[in-house]
């Protein structure tokens, strides 16, 4: 694929890239920079993308790869730990006050998850990649994705859509 085609496709993929970057870094400034770097690298590697595959999945693999390289580099420099997302910085993100508070609370809980669980949650719960697709992007066995989600689900269970679950139980 030509660089220009990839550049044209990136704006649509950018929200996914940004959220995945946030799930990796847990830090707002790093997320913006990692997102930018991912876009630049994707254009640079445009000829490696095969149109039969998932463009977003390909971008997220690039994102993760850049992040791992930076982590290795950072480890060698023994940098300080990153700041984590301050949920108090969250603005009104939904139409109603109650919804805002609910969304804010959920985002806060997601951001407080361990990095590995957070990335799995972002890919499967939010971006709706299948377990196997998420396993490819994260370069881990599918069972690892499932166990990370299982652990995350325990923390996030209080936010479960009880209505959905109950109605489906009743259907059976």
């Amino acid at each position: 694929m030509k660089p220009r085609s990839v550049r044209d496709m990136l704006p649509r993929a950018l929200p996914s890239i940004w959220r995945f970057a946030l799930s990796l870094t847990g830090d707002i400034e790093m997320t913006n920079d990692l997102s930018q770097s991912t876009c630049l690298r994707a254009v640079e590697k445009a000829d490696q993308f095969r149109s039969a595959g998932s463009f977003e999945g390909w971008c997220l693999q690039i994102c993760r790869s850049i992040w791992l390289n930076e982590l290795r580099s950072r480890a060698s420099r023994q940098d300080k730990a990153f700041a984590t997302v301050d949920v108090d910085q969250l603005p009104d993100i939904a139409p109603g006050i109650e919804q805002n508070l609910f969304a804010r609370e959920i985002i806060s809980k997601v951001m407080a998850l361990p990095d590995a669980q957070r990335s799995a949650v972002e890919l499967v719960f939010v971006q709706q990649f299948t377990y196997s697709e998420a396993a490819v992007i994260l370069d881990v066995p599918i069972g690892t994705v499932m166990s990370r989600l299982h652990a995350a689900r325990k923390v996030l269970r209080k936010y479960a859509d009880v209505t959905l679950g109950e109605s489906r139980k009743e259907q059976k």
Partner: protein
Amino acid sequence: MTYSDQELLAFLNGELDDRRAGEIEQTMRVDQDLESRVMALDPVAGPVRDAMMSLPGDQVLRRIEDAALSPRQSQRESRHLARFAAVLVLGATLGAGAMWLGTPRADDWRGRVAQYQSLYVADTVRLTTASSDALTRQIGAAADSLGRPLDLSALEAPSSLKLARVQVLGLDEAPLIQIVYTDDDGKPYALCITTGGEGDEGSDASSEMLHGLATTAWQDGDFRFIFVGGEDLSKTGRIADQLKAVL
């Protein structure tokens, strides 16, 4: 191997014994339908998705697009990567608070419509199908809200589906018209039309899976359309083509 929804919910909630849970995990690795069912049943995923999808705001996206995707980006690339490394070291602050101040992207409307539609089951349509007279009134009211003519014969263009109901909903400040269909098996589908926004659907239809449903979206002037339902993207694409030709 078949599993009930109740059993799969128990699996998701960690309430199954290890042997049975392991069996489901193994089956999911080879059975994509089961994997899709489990994902759709997950009661935690929906609320988490709704909350997280509100991020990031438009301001953040525009800033990144400007920085990374402008025509001169290639000249800036090496400089940018160096800056990324520098930021890692220095922890520079770049107005983090402002980065959260955006609103959901305009094209999230497709996800919101798909999520709403995902709550529909066969009974939803069966129990609310309008009579012929009511349907005529509903179409008239929908056309008035939308500010665009809607013709019964055009809405009945998809020959494989039966028109069931039309209702006026709202999406932010704009009207959202939902035209509900059902197929011979009772599976629900819908054509939704809204106005305004800065949708990037374009006049060419684009298809994608959202919230477990196949969707095909397109734009015609100030109006945005999405056809949603089932799991077959080629089917929503075909029906969207039929509707595009007559609407």
